[in-house]
C-alpha cells in the first residue's frame, strides 16, 4: 500500500471540470513538484491534500484511509504569502504549534515546559537560518526570511506531509535559489514527504524527486471548462532532459493560451 494513493479522482465546480480522472501513487519521503498552466487544478489538488477542498468523485487515501475533511497538524502548509502571524515575533511564531498542541485551553506554555519548547524552537530557527532574527517581528523580515519562518513553523510540528503552494513565487531569483537549497537540505535531513506547486517549470525540474505535470489532454476552444486537467507527465527527476522540458513547456503554454482565449 502506498503512502498516498489517488484513484480516479474528479473535481468539478458546477459544470466546470477542474480535474478529471487523476491517478497517482506516492511513497513516503518523496518530493513531488506539481507544475502546469494556471487553472489546471494543481492548487486545487493541493487543497484536497490539505483538506480545504473535497473531491467530487474518486478516492484520496492516506495510508489506506480517507483524508480528513479539514486541515490538521499532520499536514503542514506554506502559502505564497500570509503564512506567518504578524502579531507574534519569529520565535513566538514557531513556538505557536507546540503551545497549541500541549495546552488545548490556554494555548500558552509557561515555565520549564516553555523553556524546553523554546530550545526546540531555537534549534529549528538555526536549521532554517533565522537564529539571529529570533526576536524580530515578521514585518521586519524580507520575503525570503518570512518564507523560511513559515517553513520552520510547519516543520516543528513534524507533519507527515508538507504542502507548498508556490512558496517562492514572490521572491527574487537569487533568494529563490537559496530557498531551493534550504528546502532540499531540510527534506534530506528530515525525510518528510513534500508536495510543491510551482508555475516555474525549471524550478519543478530542479527540485524534488518527481515531477507531476498537470495539463489538459483535450481542449474545446468553445467550452474551455468542459474538460478538466489530469497528470500528463509523471517523471522521476534525474531522467529528464532539455528536449523533454521543451515538449512539456510547449504543451503547458498551449493549454494556458487556450484557457485564456
Amino acid at each position, binding site marked *: 500500500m502506498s503512502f498516498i494513493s489517488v484513484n480516479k479522482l474528479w473535481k468539478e465546480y458546477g459544470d466546470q471540470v477542474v480535474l478529471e480522472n487523476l491517478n497517482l501513487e506516492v511513497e513516503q519521503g518523496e518530493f513531488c513538484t506539481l507544475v502546469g498552466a494556471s487553472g489546471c487544478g494543481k492548487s486545487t489538488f493541493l487543497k484536497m491534500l*490539505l483538506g*480545504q477542498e473535497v473531491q467530487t468523485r474518486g478516492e484520496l487515501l492516506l495510508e489506506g484511509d480517507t483524508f480528513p475533511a*479539514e*486541515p*490538521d*497538524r499532520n*499536514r*503542514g*502548509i506554506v*502559502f505564497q*504569502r*500570509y*503564512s*506567518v*502571524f*504578524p*502579531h507574534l515575533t519569529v520565535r513566538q511564531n514557531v513556538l*505557536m*504549534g507546540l*503551545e*497549541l*498542541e500541549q495546552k*488545548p*485551553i490556554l*494555548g500558552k506554555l509557561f515555565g520549564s515546559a516553555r523553556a524546553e519548547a523554546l530550545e526546540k524552537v531555537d534549534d529549528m530557527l538555526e536549521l532554517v537560518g533565522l537564529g539571529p532574527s529570533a526576536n524580530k*517581528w*515578521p*514585518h*521586519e523580515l524580507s520575503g525570503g526570511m518570512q518564507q523560511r519562518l*513559515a517553513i520552520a*513553523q*510547519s516543520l516543528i*510540528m513534524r*507533519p507527515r506531509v508538507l504542502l507548498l503552494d508556490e512558496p517562492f513565487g514572490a521572491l527574487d531569483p537569487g533568494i529563490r535559489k537559496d530557498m531551493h537549497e534550504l528546502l532540499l537540505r531540510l527534506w534530506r535531513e528530515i525525510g518528510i514527504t513534500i508536495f510543491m506547486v510551482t508555475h516555474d517549470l525549471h524550478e519543478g525540474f530542479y527540485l524534488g524527486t518527481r515531477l507531476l505535470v498537470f495539463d489538459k489532454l483535450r481542449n474545446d476552444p468553445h467550452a474551455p471548462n468542459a474538460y478538466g486537467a489530469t497528470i500528463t507527465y509523471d517523471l522521476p527527476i534525474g531522467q529528464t532532459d532539455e528536449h523533454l522540458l521543451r515538449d512539456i513547456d510547449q504543451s503547458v503554454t498551449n493549454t494556458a493560451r487556450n484557457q485564456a482565449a
Partner: protein
Amino acid sequence: MRLINRTPGRLTATALGVLPFIILLLIYGAASQQRLADNPNDKLLPGLEQMTAAVDRMAFQEDRRSGDYLMWVDTLASLERLGMGVGVAALMALVVGLANGVLPLVRANLAPLVSALSMVPPLAILPILFIVFGLGELSKVMLIVIGTAPIMMRDVAQRVSELPGEQLIKIQTLGANSWQVVTRMALPQVLPRLIDAVRLSLGPAWLFLIAAEAIASTEGLGYRIFLVRRYLAMDVILPYVIWITLLAIVIDQCLRLANRRLFPWYNAGGH
C-alpha cells in the same frame, strides 16, 4: 507646479493649521467686544473675563447650596458614565464580533440581528430605556451601550473576516482547535482594531451621554449645560463645551498612544 503637488513645509503646515483657530478667536473676540460695549450686561457673547470668572466659580469655589465643586462633580459623573458605557459596549463588541467573525454558524444566527439593531436610532428608544431602567445611572449607560455596541460589533466581525484566509488554514495545520483559533489568532489581532473602533465610537458616545444627561440627571456636563441654558449663561456653556472637547481629544490621543505602545507590530505595518 500643480496644486496637488505643492506640499507645505513643517513650519508652514503648523501655521496653516493654527490659522483657522486664530481667525475664529478673533471674530468671536471682536463680536463679543462690540456687544459688551453696547451693553455691559450682555449674556450672549461673554468676554474672556466673564468666562474666567464663571470657570473660577464652577471649578474652584464651593457651590453655595451643595458645597461641591460643580465642574469637577459634573466631569467625574460624565466620565464615569462614558467609561462604563463605552467599556461595556467594547466588551460586548469583542465577544459578539469575534464569534460572528470566526464561527459561520454563529454568524448565520446573529449577524442579521446585529445589522438590524445597528440601524435602530438609539435616541428613539431613549424613552423606552427610561421606562425600563428608570431615570438612574443605568438608563444613561445603557443608551451609550445600545448606541455604540452594534456598530462596533459589526466592525470587529468585519476586521476578523479581513484576516487573511491563509492564516486560518495555517493555524489549523498547527493543530489549533476552534477556541485556540479565537484566542491565539483572532483576538490578539483584533484588539488594536477594537481600540480604533472605540476611538471612532467616542463621538457618538458623547452625543448619547449629553442627550441622556440633558433629559434626566442631577449632575454631569450635559446636565449643567442644559440647566444653565435657562439663564442664557453662555459664560458657563462655552467653557463647558471647550472642556468637553478637550476631554474628548485627550481620551482619543491616550487611546492612540496605548495602541502604539501595546501593539508595536500593528502600527509598523505588520498587518
